């Protein structure tokens, strides 16, 4: 053991949590970029992802990694359906005050999903099984294999998302819609259909984050509130809509949190990210990547 070990352990912890926040924040960014709305029910897709994975691994007895895939699929399709049912009026010029409409709808959806979870799953905290047992000994620090695997899966999912966004037809079209909706229609792109897919993709990234953090924290109906607030903080400090900003912002928040826990106090864990947000906005009012939009 080494004097620095606890600090190193916290730093690694921060990176692990940060990469999972990155999934959430990137999901929020995709939705914001394409649909121009802030999804206030993002935390509830996180919660549903955690429950989906919990039931697959705990109740059905399958491997927790299978639970993550089920969580991703379930929250993707739920996201697509919800967008089609509730948000399409935004794009048919039926709604006059779009921002207010989107705020009320997604906020109402958040309350609905929390209460539905309370009624269906009950208020009790459940602990999901770790993704894998054992520890990894690196000499100076020892890490839990479950956490490391969660971070690796998060990073893999982030890379897959970035690949989709930057290299595929779907991603190119989504970026085009985010930059100029009318011109994308002139190209023949059906922005309404792709908007539903974008919402599904955003929702399933939150679902994946929930499934990955379920075993680290606990699974309960309002578990999504704090991570959702943190992903709002992250996308604001990374400049709304910037993909780079979402990813670097997440790592920054993860690191700042664990350093705060180490040097100050674990009691204020959730406050540190707000402090960093306020500091960054004081000096860079447009966020870290101000002006940058949907590029990589």
């Amino acid at each position, binding site marked *: 053991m080494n004097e620095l070990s606890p600090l190193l352990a916290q730093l690694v912890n921060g990176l692990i949590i940060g990469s999972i926040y990155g999934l959430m924040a990137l999901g929020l960014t995709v939705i914001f970029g394409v649909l121009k709305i802030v999804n206030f029910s993002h935390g509830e897709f996180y919660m549903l992802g955690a429950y989906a994975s919990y039931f697959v691994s705990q109740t059905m007895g399958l491997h927790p990694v299978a639970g993550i895939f089920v969580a991703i699929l379930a929250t993707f399709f739920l996201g697509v359906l919800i967008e089609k049912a509730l948000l399409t009026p935004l794009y048919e010029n039926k709604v006059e005050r779009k921002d207010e409409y989107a705020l009320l709808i997604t906020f109402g959806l958040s309350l609905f999903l929390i209460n539905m979870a309370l009624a269906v799953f009950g208020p009790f905290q459940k602990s999901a099984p770790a993704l894998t047992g054992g520890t990894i000994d690196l000499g100076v620090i020892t890490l839990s294999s479950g956490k490391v695997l969660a971070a690796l899966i998060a990073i893999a999912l982030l890379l897959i998302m970035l690949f989709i966004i930057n290299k595929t037809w779907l991603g190119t079209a989504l970026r085009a819609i985010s930059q100029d909706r*009318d011109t994308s229609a002139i190209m023949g792109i059906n922005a309404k259909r792709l908007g539903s897919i974008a919402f599904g993709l955003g929702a399933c990234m939150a679902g994946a984050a929930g499934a990955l953090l379920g075993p680290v924290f606990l699974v309960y109906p309002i578990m999504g509130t704090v991570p959702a607030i943190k992903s709002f903080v992250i996308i604001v400090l990374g400049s709304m809509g910037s993909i780079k900003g979402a990813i670097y912002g997440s790592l920054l928040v993860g690191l700042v949190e664990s350093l705060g826990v180490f040097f100050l106090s674990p009691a204020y864990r959730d406050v540190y990210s707000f402090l960093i947000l306020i500091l960054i906005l004081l000096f860079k009012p447009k966020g870290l990547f101000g002006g940058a939009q949907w590029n990589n």
Partner: protein
Amino acid sequence: MLEVANVEAGYGKIQILNNLSLSAKENKLTLLIGPNGAGKSTLLKTIFGFVTPSKGSIRFQGEEISGLPSHKLANLGIGFLLQRVSVFPDLTIEENLKLGAWSFKKDSARVAQRIECMYEKFPILKQKRSESAGLMSGGQKRMLEIARTLMPGPRLILVDEPSAGLSPKIAKEVYRVLHELRDEGITLLMVDQNIRESIGYSDHVYVLERGQVSSESAADEIEKNLKQVVESWLKF
């Protein structure tokens, strides 16, 4: 090729187009002129489905297209060059071109072939293929917009003030390209303020005033009446 009949359209409660009828003939350049605010852009937007007409019919190759969502028109072979800058600024030039091929994206050989074809026509685009489109000059953006419109091989292109905001030299180049298109058999319906420049090349001219066609004629006739037409705009 395109028939607009008795169309009424506008924004919200404000009606801009009043019982407007006109047509664009195949392989011809039909020119729309008229004072600012006459509704020229609104007419093109209505044809393309961005503005929904409250009355009247719009037919393309005999098929009713009014009420169709805009993204369906690309598949029918209609292109639209907007008045404003419309490149996707944070996409590369090549990505911009690729999106022009959205309607046949599954045919990757054809997509690649069309992109090569555009690079031959507009070498500057090939040179800058991996740069962000937003970084190009105004004239280069316009060329990219034209190339992207040509990607799927449209039958009809709606063109809204192609030379707006460009230097005379670049405007000339834009006109040269557009006139070539007409000679290649693409039908053009073009709005232009640059009357002297464009009338010489057009086949038929409509004058739009207050959302209605106030006069029409073959291009060579209107050149004679041009002075009178412009004077009549100045009256209001």
